[in-house]
């Protein structure tokens, strides 16, 4: 079982979700985050004080998948998320030791989908 954390641009969320669904991945958790990366933020100016704030709004997706779905999920993200500019984001993959569906108590592969 794998756990995918993907950081994407906020306005790509809709597309990425659709793309994931097309590849059979329907379940995920979405978090509003700020990203600090190579992409330079827009310099905000408040009463002449410039703040080079390199924290940019991003969306973080967290997706638990069974091993056989891993590639499909990654492909789906890779297809929908990029714009080609710095700031497209990253995908991080983790091994997951256990997964439980709270409602039913199902565990492991059963519980993920």
């Amino acid at each position: 079982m794998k756990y995918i954390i993907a950081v994407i641009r906020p306005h790509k969320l809709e597309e990425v979700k659709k793309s994931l669904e097309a590849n059979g991945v329907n379940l995920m958790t979405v978090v509003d985050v700020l990203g600090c990366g190579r992409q330079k933020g827009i310099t905000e100016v408040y009463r002449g004080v410039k703040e080079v704030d390199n924290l940019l709004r991003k969306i973080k997706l967290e997706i638990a998948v069974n091993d056989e779905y891993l590639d499909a999920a990654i492909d789906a993200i890779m297809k929908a998320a990029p714009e080609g500019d710095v700031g497209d984001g990253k995908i991080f993959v983790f091994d997951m030791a256990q997964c439980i569906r709270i409602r039913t108590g199902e565990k492991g592969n059963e519980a993920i989908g």
Partner: protein
Amino acid sequence: MINAADTAWVIVATILVMIMTPTLAFFYGGLVRKKNMLSVLMQCMVILAVISIQWILFGYSLAFGPDHGGIIGSLKYAFLNGVGLDPIEGQTIPAQLFVCFQMMFAVITPALMVGAFVERIKFSGFLLFVVLWSTLIYDPMCHMVWGKGGWLFDKGALDFAGGTVIHITAGISALVASMMIGKRSGNGMSSSPHNLPFAVLGAAFLWMGWFGFNAGSALGVGKQTVSAFINTNTAAAAALIAWMALDWFINKIPTVLGVITGVVAGLVAITPAAGFVTPMASIAIGAGGSIIGFIFVTCIKPKFGYDDSLDVFGVHGMAGVWGALATGIFAVKEVGGTDGLLRGNWHQMWVQAEGVLVAIALSVVGTFIIFKICDLLIGMRVDMRDENIGLDLTQHHEAGYTLID
């Protein structure tokens, strides 16, 4: 002679109309996405300032200066030359107060259009557009209907507080502008309001301000003032209920966005009629405004697919048309001195329709030309990347809210 009570009331009314523009900004701003909130507030605040200055420099003179061919005023009163503190003939308030009251109308009209092109307009292009539009469309339109010598004025068109001059003109121009600037990219059209409470706040204060708008248009304190007052409130209330009922029957649920939209549609509809009809007629006019608005917002717009983002066309333009015609239908002599269709005065209907058609024609042609010019000179739309990031950061280098702090 200056009448103190009249003056006091018109001062208050002017203040009420003034605050409508910022609260309109909140009504609109609450409905856009978070990343574009400030751009909406900015546009409205800037209009308030720019048109305030345009008006005293030359706008007022174009609208209310000595007539040129029934179409426009001369520049005689530019820089408020000769516009002092004594009343204009036939009025009882200082002339400069009349300037201020009318100024706030000139301010809010272009501000209404903001709802049509939110989330994608370039600020610099917008600025030029507003100044040209106000000068070339609003000022003549105002002159024709309200200015001494204006040809619609002479024909006897009834427009108590600006249904034609303001709402139809703004609503139609908004439609044209929204089609010319194009749809929002991505899933812009199906995004949810980022802060509905702000929109409710805006709507509530619009309701409040509209008392100044309509009852203030009596330019004094008297029976007609009170008629306009009670009609304004009644139409707003009836429209709220009507929209809620439609929502409930058709979409199966009464919504907050629905009721506040209804309020505005009702207020728009009663605007031209406020000083001419009875409270019971206001119920019909207000409810009618909601029905028309509802149809345009939920049926016509999806069918045609233009992205009049916050429904300026449906809510102001079309409810405005309804209001202008309804004035011709429901007017009664006892309230405002003229009878309408229901009292057998078919002629008034025709005069009203004429006003509507002129407003539509002028708005369509004028907005088309002005928009094209601005687009060529400066550009009216931000590029895709900026639209994605949002106008607040890209046009103003600011964020509306901090995420962490």
